[in-house]
């Protein structure tokens, strides 16, 4: 049994002359919650569609549960649950009937799975209300239930927090955690709410303009976004030179002409301030802070 649930090798999808995704190589191991981060139109949804077989590839290869090739991939996809973009539900049917259809298609023999799944997503008491009368949050949860009814091993969720109120967002986050812990599910989740995603993801893929810019684990991300000294100054280049000369600083980055980040010697903030001031460098502010996931994303993709 392959330890990888999903491996893509240089997959590309072209619409006309433009690449929606280009040479994207992603690796997701069992049990991981993989957060796919990117701006609108970055290629997140196209990537998910390519994995689920909704769109054909222009190039590259998808491997699911160690399987490649059309026939084997099709069979492997039976182990996937997905909710991509708009909730895919029958508006004129109740939640129960929606799940019954997916249960039949997925060949799940146990009818009790419907009730259990509705309870998991919190839609057990919707009765005869048809899906068209659901709120967007309820539709999202029904789409999630549709993905879960076939008892998948790999769940693909595109913006699952879209349209949810704060409580719904927390519930969805907790549900994702529970699914990963209790059922051993592997998740591929995309979201615009980066800090929200930061609370559940174990691994990240940052996609920008159709290309995978970076792939890293939560631990690696923590290291990259670890505590640092933020110095706001009129002359970051000179400040950096002084710090290198007097403190031997090596892990130092001028994030802009007016801002400098030092990722070492955190305890010597005061000394650094004194040094810069004594050399005539105006320090507008100095302090220790941590980079948020959003800031890290912006630093990688070059602004929103």
């Amino acid at each position: 049994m392959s330890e990888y649930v999903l491996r893509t090798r240089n997959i590309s999808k072209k619409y006309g002359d433009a690449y929606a995704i280009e040479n994207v190589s992603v690796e997701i191991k069992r049990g991981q919650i993989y957060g796919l981060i990117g701006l609108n139109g970055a290629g997140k949804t196209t990537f998910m569609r390519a994995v689920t077989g909704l769109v054909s590839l222009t190039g590259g290869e998808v491997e699911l549960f160690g399987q490649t090739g059309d026939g084997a991939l099709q069979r492997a996809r039976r182990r996937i649950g997905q909710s991509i973009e708009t909730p895919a539900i029958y508006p004129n049917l109740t939640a129960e009937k929606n799940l019954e259809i997916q249960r039949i298609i997925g060949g799940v023999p146990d009818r009790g799975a419907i009730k259990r799944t509705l309870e998991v997503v919190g839609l057990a008491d919707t009765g005869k209300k048809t899906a068209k009368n659901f709120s967007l949050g309820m539709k999202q949860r029904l789409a999630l239930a549709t993905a879960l009814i076939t008892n998948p091993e790999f769940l693909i969720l595109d913006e699952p927090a879209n349209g949810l109120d704060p409580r719904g967002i927390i519930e969805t986050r907790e549900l994702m955690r529970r699914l990963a812990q209790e059922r051993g599910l592997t998740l591929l989740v995309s979201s615009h709410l980066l800090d929200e995603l930061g609370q559940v993801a174990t691994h990240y893929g940052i996609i920008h303009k159709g290309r995978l810019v970076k792939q890293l684990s939560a631990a690696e991300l923590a290291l990259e976004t670890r505590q640092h000294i933020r110095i706001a100054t009129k002359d970051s280049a000179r400040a950096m030179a002084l710090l290198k000369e007097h403190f031997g600083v090596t892990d130092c980055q001028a994030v802009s002409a007016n801002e400098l980040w030092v990722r070492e010697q955190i305890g010597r903030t005061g000394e650094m301030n004194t040094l810069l001031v004594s050399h005539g460098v105006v320090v507008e502010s100095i302090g220790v802070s941590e980079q948020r996931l959003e800031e890290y994303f912006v630093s990688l993709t070059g602004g929103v």
Partner: protein
Amino acid sequence: MTTLISSEWYKLIHNKLLALILAGVALQTMLQVQGEYAMEKAVLGQYGVAMVADSSWFLVIWIVAFVGFFVASDFQNYTVRNVLALGKNRTQIFLSKLLAACIAVTAIFATASIVNTVGYTLAFGFGDMSFGEFLRFSSWNFLMQLLFHLTFASVFCLFAFLSRNPGGTILLGIGYMVGEMLAMGFMANYPGNVLAFAVDYFPSYYIGRFFHPVKHILNLDPAFIRQGIIVSLAYIVVPCIIGCAVFKRSDVK
């Protein structure tokens, strides 16, 4: 394939669409019978099944409405994604939808036939056919007309997979019906009868021929019937092949 057919069957039963369409067909057929009664155009109840061909145009509109709202809406609701992402074969998906459309066409035809037979019997009496003769006449007529109308199910399914929305399917379907009528009229009336032979290649031609010689339907030339069956099968199979091929190569949102 079994799971796909089962799910389509479940949707047919639990979706109110087919029930609404059948109610519409029943009402339209009753109005037609009432119209004949008002005009004192006596039609005996024993010919009720054959009379369905007289309202073929309306029935085809019901068929395209069904295909649009039942088949194409799967693209509009994105529910086709739920099937595809489970690794289901695209040809099988197309065929299961076509089968659902064929079941609906059968139900539409059965409803119109029953309402016609009962309605005309109440209005003008049943006629002098024995029960056995009536059964033979009706079942033969029903099956042949059903076959001719199944061609529309296949063509409209293709339209549903091409347009991917109910409105587009209905517009294409009506356009097809009008186009077919105009083409047949043009060919039949072309000077010198040089194009008249081409009319034989339209299923609607056979629907008309089955209706007109109501009393002699069982005595139709077997070669003519054979040709009608071949033409109909071609109209079912060819759109099906095109639909499967297009769907296999296309991306789904």
